[in-house]
């Protein structure tokens, strides 16, 4: 749905005749509804196929598997809506871990170290945003370069070896390992981030300008929107959220790995696109993107439970992406 990103609240009582029907039709035709349906079908099928699937432990493991990555998905979705793309997210996640870990081992307070690392990731975003908006390079190339640069920096700092952070204070480890009641704290953070950004993306004027810019950059400029600023800030936001995710990973693993997050960009972009974000910009929702991530995660988990070879899993995930995009293209063509 190309315009799924703009809030579609029902205006039913004004157009009484078609109001309720139209509302039902619109909800039924929304991307999110379709995804939820597919996920539910998978759930039902899997609960028959494997008694282990619907257990609390498995559910928790599945949510944990995408929760932190889900924060990166949020940033990527917003950047995609603005018309950009970021291939460097995986490297930036790793860079945040490695830099914070290295600073901690050098005697810095872990909270300060984390703040510095997140700020450094924001700087990577600024550098990319500068290249895109001031020099006029394409997001794809710029983020490809920074993907390599950030990864190189990780390897340089660690000399290629993982850093063990066994001395992290427990209150810091709580971020990644603690629970509030039965719910892991990571999931709490994830849910808060998702709800906050989903709400802002639907309602706030600031994020509306991201939609305008991505939908038609020139028309946005001709509406008085400073499109370069919008693109710059979207780029910075994506890198900052990636840095934030890196810190959570560090707290969760109690270590910093210079090779962590390789290939993450593909997962993240796939989730956003399955959830309805367009690579051309102008459309997408956080809820949709997260559902895309859930779908990919459920599929992975299902395949693992069914003892399907790991090598098959990638092929299946790629096929799901292709199917989702083709389906979208087909729908849009029929609409026009």
């Amino acid at each position: 749905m190309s315009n799924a990103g703009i809030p579609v609240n029902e205006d039913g009582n004004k157009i009484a005749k078609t109001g309720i029907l139209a509302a039902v039709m619109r909800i039924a035709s929304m991307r999110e509804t379709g995804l939820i349906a597919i996920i539910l079908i998978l759930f039902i099928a899997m609960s028959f196929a494997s008694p282990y699937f619907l257990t609390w432990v498995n559910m928790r493991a599945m949510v944990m598997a995408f929760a932190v990555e889900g924060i990166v998905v949020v940033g990527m979705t917003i950047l995609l809506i603005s018309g950009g793309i970021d291939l460097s997210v995986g490297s930036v996640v790793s860079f945040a871990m490695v830099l914070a870990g290295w600073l901690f081992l050098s005697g810095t307070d872990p909270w300060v170290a984390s703040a510095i690392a997140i700020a450094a990731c924001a700087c990577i975003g600024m550098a990319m945003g500068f290249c895109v908006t001031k020099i006029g390079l394409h997001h794809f190339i710029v983020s490809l370069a920074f993907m390599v640069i950030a990864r190189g920096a990780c390897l340089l700092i660690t000399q290629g070896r993982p850093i063990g952070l066994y001395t992290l204070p427990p209150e810091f480890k709580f971020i990644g390992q603690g629970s509030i009641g039965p719910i892991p704290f990571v999931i709490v953070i994830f849910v808060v981030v998702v709800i906050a950004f989903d709400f802002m993306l639907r309602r706030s004027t600031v994020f509306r300008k991201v939609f305008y810019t991505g939908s038609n950059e020139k028309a946005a400029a001709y509406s008085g929107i400073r499109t370069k600023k919008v693109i710059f800030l979207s780029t910075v936001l994506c890198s900052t959220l990636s840095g934030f995710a890196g810190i959570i990973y560090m707290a969760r693993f109690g270590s910093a790995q210079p090779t962590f997050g390789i290939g993450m960009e593909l997962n993240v972009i796939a989730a956003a696109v399955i959830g309805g974000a367009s690579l051309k910009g102008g459309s997408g929702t956080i809820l949709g993107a997260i559902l895309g991530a859930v779908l990919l995660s459920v599929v992975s988990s299902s395949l693992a439970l069914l003892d399907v070879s790991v090598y098959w899993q990638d092929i299946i995930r790629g096929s799901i992406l292709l199917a989702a995009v083709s389906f979208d293209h087909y729908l849009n063509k029929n609409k026009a």
Partner: protein
Amino acid sequence: MPAETILQISKISKSFGAIQALKAVDFNLRKGEIHALAGENGAGKSTLMNIIDGILQPTSGTIHLNGQEVKITSPAQAQKLGIGFVHQEIALCPDISVAENIFMAETNASSARLMNYQDLYERARTVFAQLSPIDPGILVRELSISNQQLVEIAKALTLDCQILILDEPTAALTEKEAQVLFAIMKSLAARGISIIYISHRMVEIFDHCDRVSVFRDGQHIITSEVQDITPDDIVKNMVGRVIDKLYPPKQEQHEKTGETLLKVCNYTEKSRFRNISFEIFKGEILGFAGLIGAGRSEIAKGICGLEGNIEGELWLRGKPVSVKNYQDSINLGMVYLSEDRKGDGIFLDLSIASNVSALCVEQVATRWGLIDASREREQARDLGDRLNLKRGHLDQPVSSLSGGNQQKVALAKMLSVSPRVIFLDEPTRGVDVGAKSEIHGILRNLARNGVGIVIISSELPELIGVCDRVLVVREGLISGEVSGDTLTEEHIMHLASITGSEPMKGHDMQDARP
């Protein structure tokens, strides 16, 4: 003139979904004639030409070429049949040479593995020998718009065609270049090539064409020898009603306030325009005329802070103001409606409501920067009703509307900030006749209510019909002003394309004003 018919179109209809673009149209073309096509935008001329060129397929009807029925399924086949089409929009590859552009189709079809540039340039030079001295070796991007147009024509000529379609080729040409083109057309016709010539300019039709066919609302209305018809008849047939009702009434004498809304002094942008000075009075509609590329749009965009490095002074309602970017301009109440609606005027994929609010989303938001969806829809509903917007649900994308209604959405967006001055660039391009006169009426009402209206248009009848005063721009300078009795196509065309003499400077203009 031999009366041998080369192309016979019979009962051609074409519909796009529910819209019938052509209704059982008959049309014939004689060998060696220059046949003008006249009609408003949306009358069906382009659709018919696209059918002849194989871009579109007719829903029903037949085409006979040299007495034989043909089915033209693609532009490539049209070329084989000897039909060449010079489109209004230039469709050249800017980064390759002129010669390569001209022989692109041939190169594509050729089985040779290597390019023979020597031969290519040689043949291109032969083509240009009869046109204009353009070096076949230079890149298309380095040519002026008018020379690019000539390359398009050269491209069609190399196809060895028997029918040549020219779609408003003079829109981007100076008068001198246009005269060269007419001479070329005459010599081609003398060689037996038939030319279909689409133009809005009556003078060109009467000076250079043999016959004229008029279209309206997808129907063929009349075909006549030019000596048997008058310009008034053509216009009457084009619009299908009495001409003086086509445009809203002009400003009445007693409505002239003399109160200056906006005063522009010595506006200069180093490469686009210089010494631009003029005033917009309350209650009037001011027009900007000139050839494409003369700098009309650039001046409007410059005033609104959309592009360019501007020097000069701007006075809004007697106070000096400075505009650094478009946001400043919007805050001051000066807005610009783009000429390229789909390219930069509207957000096709976004909803009607969010299009209307785009100029100042903050207006429909709460203090916390959250958009109030019901207020946003209310704004779109109110403005849409005011402009008589025919729409479905406000949450539907703008792409679901017709061209005229899309333009009304763009206009509603302008009105959403209650502007003091609106610059409208080609406000009725691609808009059907009904919506067009509706938009003109809306603009007149706005002017009555004290909003300064500036219309930039390439359609002279529109400028003459709607505006109270027209400034003519030529090569980045204001070359003159026409109003009242001098507001005629001849005066404007003369001012738009006079060559040789240096045009009047901006300050002379002010002195010359009564």
